[in-house]
């Protein structure tokens, strides 16, 4: 709004408007209520200020008034609750076919990997008018991905994936902040979100020196780590066939069923024993300390890409030693 004295953050995503509306409602509501209370105090204060010869009237209270001023606020509060919850629910349910982008936070930078293979640091290029879903994790402490212009924020946790989705509506460059205190350079963990027109975005995509798509990086890794020696595209492997697993329910050997989402795949690679697929033995080694967060994400992307008949896992690749993988940076 004003360069030096902003009163309103830019409005740049589909979430901005609903949040702003609720916010405006809240501002008006509380301004009215606060002014009403200030005014009442002022009026009483003047009208009944001490004067000689006037005495206070003793009043016990009034049940009707008490009920009124409990029930009416309660009603208003319930509206606020419902309204806020609806917005939140919408913010937390990404549309099915959103474009996925992977984000890793670490002290004190944001690392971004696109499906197409582009990598960025402290910058995120996204096209306007497309549903984008961010899948995020942290390499060390808790960070928080905050884009004021999108009215969005989500903590980024070590050991787990959290997600965020939006639909940018206006090209431009916007602030990206880390909003969870994460140590010395917390305030330096900032960057920009660059929202591009579709054409500019295509240009940007082709310009960047990507090393092949993320899934293909994952595929290479899959081969290097020897995953394929157990996970084959037929039913003969010692491990389950991973084609088509992602997004489906998996029956575990203790009888429970879980959905194979990003967190499940992640846990399966780092702590295979925690949840064992029914019908298999717990023979898969843990890859904790062998793959870092970014490699993990590429594996996830790869396993996700194994939908139906598309690229089957490389089946007869010999088990390669793990040395080629970079040790996990700490």
């Amino acid at each position, binding site marked *: 709004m004003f360069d*030096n*004295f*902003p009163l*309103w*953050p830019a409005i740049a995503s589909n979430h901005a408007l*609903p*949040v702003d509306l609720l*916010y405006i409602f*809240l501002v008006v*509501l509380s301004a009215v209520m*606060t002014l009403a*209370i200030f005014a009442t*105090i002022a009026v*009483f204060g003047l009208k*009944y200020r*001490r004067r000689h010869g006037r*005495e*206070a009237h*003793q*009043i*016990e*209270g*009034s049940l009707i008034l*008490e009920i009124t001023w*409990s029930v009416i606020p309660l009603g208003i*509060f*319930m509206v*606020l*609750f419902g*309204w*806020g*919850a609806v*917005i*939140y629910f919408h*913010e937390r349910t990404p549309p099915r076919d959103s474009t996925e982008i992977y984000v890793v936070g670490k*002290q004190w930078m944001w690392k971004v990997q696109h499906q197409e293979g582009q990598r960025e640091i402290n910058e995120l290029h996204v096209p306007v008018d497309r549903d984008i879903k961010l899948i995020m994790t942290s390499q*060390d402490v*808790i960070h928080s991905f*905050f884009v004021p212009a999108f*009215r*969005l*924020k*989500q*903590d980024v*946790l*070590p050991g787990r994936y*959290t997600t965020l989705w939006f639909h940018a509506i206006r090209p431009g460059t916007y*602030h990206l*902040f880390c*909003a969870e*205190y*994460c*140590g*010395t*350079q*917390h*305030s*330096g963990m*900032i960057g920009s979100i660059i929202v591009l027109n579709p054409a500019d975005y295509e240009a940007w995509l082709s310009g960047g020196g990507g090393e092949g798509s993320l899934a293909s990086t994952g595929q290479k890794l899959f081969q290097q780590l020897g995953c394929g020696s157990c996970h084959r595209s037929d039913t003969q492997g010692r491990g389950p066939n991973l084609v088509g697993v992602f997004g489906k329910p998996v029956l575990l050997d203790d009888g429970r069923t879980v959905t194979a989402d990003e967190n499940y795949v992640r846990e399966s690679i780092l702590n295979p024993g925690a949840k064992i697929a029914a019908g298999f033995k717990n023979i898969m080694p843990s890859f*904790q300390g062998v793959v870092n967060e970014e490699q993990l994400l590429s594996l996830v992307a790869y396993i996700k890409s194994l939908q139906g008949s598309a690229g089957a896992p490389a089946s007869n690749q010999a088990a390669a030693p793990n040395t080629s993988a970079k040790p996990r940076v700490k």
Partner: protein
Amino acid sequence: MATATTVTAERENYLNASYGFRSWLLTTDHKRIALLYLISITFFFFIGGFFALLIRLELLTPQGDLVQADTYNKLFSMHGQVMIFFFLIPAVPAVLGNFLVPMMIGAKDLAFPRINLLSWYLFIIGGGLMLYTILTGGVDTGWTFYVPLSTAFLGTHVVLAAVSIFIAGFSSILTGLNFIVTIHRMRAPGMTWGRMPLFLWSNYATAIIQVLGTPVLAISLSLVGLERLFHLGVFNPQLGGDPLLFQHLFWFYSHPAVYIMILPGMGVVSEIIPCFSRKRVFGYEFVALASIGIAVLGFLVWAHHMFVAGISVYSAMVFSFFSYLVAVPSAIKVFNWTATMYKGKIYYTTPMLYAMGFIGLFTMGGMTGLFLASLGVDVHVTDTYFVVAHFHYIMVGGMVMAYLAGMHFWWPKITGRMYPEGWGRLAALTIFIGFNLTFFPQFILGWTGMPRRYHAYPAEFQVLNVLSTAGSTVLAVGYLLPMVYFLWSLRYGKEAGDNPWGAAGLEWKTTSPPPTYNFEETPVVTWEAYNYDDLPKEVPVVG
């Protein structure tokens, strides 16, 4: 009124009953312990305020130029920890509560006087450790100690700070324990629950929270300590530990703790407004029960601090819902205080000015709490200056004002002297103006997206930050004033007399300052609370 500053042969009271350091440091008199607390927390308030001023100075310019990033992080961490655990939590309960609870129910002392003294010593040990932490390099965890940052990534005195807060927590538990037992078991004949001043109700509610919440803080800090010292990583993500579990445990205490920090202030205001309106409080039962309601419901809302932390969507909704429920009793209180002024006879004394300031600023702070409790809006404003403004409105605008209101109101009882009224009003006004100038801009900063705990910030936020810093200097002057004139009044203040305000309440029925055992003989209560129809129609000192 006696204007003489000449010391007439004084009656024996708790101040002159005995002399010497020993008689203070080994005292079990609740009134003396209250004074020990008063001195200690005032000291910590100025330390915390000093850090606040440094924070504000750093934020005068967008670049991080005054102090290093690490230093800045220590500043806000220690500001938060000192202000919360060593100033605001003990402020009203341990000073005014200690002084007044036994007197208001007509008892000679708290139920466990020695435990009361022990609680002060624990406070001092905890405080001493905190000072040691500060002097030997400080701690930069934020006041929230979030893991795994605090357990695995920081090289500062995390364990020391945690231990100091653990110990201070015990002191707080013991105060609460004492109040609960005292209020249950020590009431004078005729002092039924329905006749208790609202100050007691709110301190009772506070005590419930102290007793039931603080141990959970103790265990969560212990677990942080164990993880740092012995690799017992309950929250360690490498072992599948969940950082959110720490947050659940921390906020299970720390949200109710915000009510530890406001309920006693509400109690103070519930005494002052009737007194200076010369009438009964409006809707006594509702104000009393609202305190208990806040204490209980306050335990059901903690995860509203975690809406973007990665908790489940459904759980977030449950906690948002309860956050709105807990706002209802606060609303009831605000309306009842306002209604108490209706058809009263209103005196603009210093305590009353503070109390009115409290209502206004608490309302604003509470209302912005409703913004935060709303899931959709909180996602945007959480961890921004909007939150910082919200809680300073309640804690500084609300509670510190209430604390000052109470100090002025009971100063004559505590010391037997009046403070200078003109200066008092001037200070109240200065604080009100300085406060709003400091913290109102922060709402806008937060809404436009400035994150909290930022050592440096984008240039467009500068103007509002400058305003805020300017305000904080006004505020500093405002807080120094009472320090000066309170000390002045100890010697030169007018003698107060037993009941200068013509106020209800047993504490005004004894002498000022009160004798060691409070009453010559145990009073028998035959009247309702706030019986202003039986009291002087005018405030004696004002006329």
